């Protein structure tokens, strides 16, 4: 973890809360990264042969086991293919959804349109959870956003490119409701003395200890990209920002904990 702070303007108590919160975010995020990584490995193994088809995927059992576990209750899991990668379908996705409150009993396959000639076809290769991992080659967190295709709620979609050799085959990943994240961070957020806000790289609120900052809001005026870049360059942090926030990264996750500084 590293911090960029408006120097000394956060109380020791708030500082330690922020530290614990960032550690918990990192822990949950690490679990999700590991789960997505395992799914990516499975998909790439199944599609490694020459001219793979839909029938080679067979990831239902894996996805169901992800949706059945209770450590980090998920809202969705699956694979979305790059166009033209599968021999028997130009567009293809296999995604299972579940109500994270309920688990496996609510699990069902997502019905999605994969026929580009059909009337309301939405080209998923334009959507951020597909585009970004394809462009960067890295795991990506989209959201929180209102996912009208799938969960109907504020959602974080974590996707990672599936590569066989250097060929991009699509993305595999999971959906996590923002409400679930909020609950998983409950022990760290509830009753905190400081104002702590978990945000993504553009400053979109994921969870917060303060009702002034609600999931989906944007915290404006953050030099957010600079902060995240700074982190990569100089992991021990430092430097003041004058934004009213102290900034703390959560490991390598594209998420940060903001803590309000006193004026």
């Amino acid at each position, binding site marked *: 973890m590293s911090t960029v702070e408006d120097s000394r303007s956060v109380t020791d108590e708030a500082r330690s809360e922020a530290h614990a919160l960032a550690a918990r975010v990192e822990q949950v995020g690490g679990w999700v990264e590991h789960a997505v990584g395992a799914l990516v490995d499975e998909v790439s193994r199944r599609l490694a042969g020459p001219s793979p088809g839909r029938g080679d995927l067979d990831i239902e059992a894996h996805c169901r086991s992800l949706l059945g576990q209770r450590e980090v209750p998920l809202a969705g899991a699956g694979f979305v293919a790059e166009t033209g990668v599968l021999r028997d379908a130009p567009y293809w996705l296999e995604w299972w959804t579940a109500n994270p409150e309920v688990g496996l009993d609510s699990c069902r396959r997502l019905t*999605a349109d*994969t026929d580009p*000639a059909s009337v309301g*076809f939405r080209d998923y290769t334009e959507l951020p959870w597909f585009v970004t991992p394809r462009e960067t080659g890295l795991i990506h967190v989209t959201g929180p956003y*209102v996912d*009208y*295709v799938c969960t109907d709620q504020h959602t974080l979609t974590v996707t990672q490119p599936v590569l066989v050799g250097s060929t991009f085959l699509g993305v595999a990943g999971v959906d996590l409701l923002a409400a679930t994240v909020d609950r998983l961070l409950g022990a760290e957020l509830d009753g905190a003395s400081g104002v702590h806000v978990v945000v993504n790289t*553009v400053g979109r609120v994921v969870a917060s200890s303060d009702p002034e900052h609600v999931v*989906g809001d944007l915290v404006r005026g953050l030099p957010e990209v600079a902060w995240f870049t700074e982190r990569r360059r100089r992991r021990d942090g430092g430097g003041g920002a004058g934004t009213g926030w102290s900034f703390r990264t959560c490991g390598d996750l594209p998420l940060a904990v903001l803590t309000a500084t006193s004026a």
Partner: protein
Amino acid sequence: MSERVQPAGASIQLGPYAAVFAPLDAGRRADAVARRLGDSIAFGLLPDDSPLPAEADLAERFGVATVTVREALGALRSEGLIRTRRGRRGGSFVCAPSDGGRAALLERLRRTGIGEWRDLTDFYATVSGGCARLAAHRADDADAARLASLAAREPVTARAGIQRLEGQFHLDLAATAQSARLTREEMALQAELGPVLWLAHAQEGSPAQASARHRSIAEAVRDGDGGAARAEAEAHVGELFGAVRRMMVQARRLR
């Protein structure tokens, strides 16, 4: 725009018609199922001869019993909106109207009356305007770029094309507002009002005008100007309703 017939044996894909197949409130049941499916078919919004999902699948989608779906399909069959084939590749198939749904729309307008459509459109304008205002406050750069690229699509006149263009833009606008409830309301309104609004627009509206409004909304969202975004969205819905008014004049002439 030519509408493609789905291969035999494949059920119609729900993605683009998600609003059509969205779950129903309790009550109404068979009538509601028949009306929801019937409107979209009668107004030419579902491709001719495309297979409907299986009864059990429809029942799950609408949140009703299979027997209710069967009853609704029976009603649609007697209205000539679907045909049913038996056998392994059997099921229910869409009978699209040969006039693109114009007669059905005129009939619907004549029967329901303009007041009810205006009421529903007022509600839609409020939802859509509210979404636009919140979107202007809550959009990040990527959201603004996505809306701009949807707004930059070529204007279309085909029914199916309008459904895609209007439906997608406004759904993304609602999602950009970061409101799950407004997004659900947008979807529900698209299911209830969309067929009438879009078909009237296809018959009597101005695609160029609608596209210009989409661009203005996207620009206002990008600029963070909530007031302008709301005003543009409300004006846009008003213009779509203008096409319904013009259709109404024709419906009255036929009376």
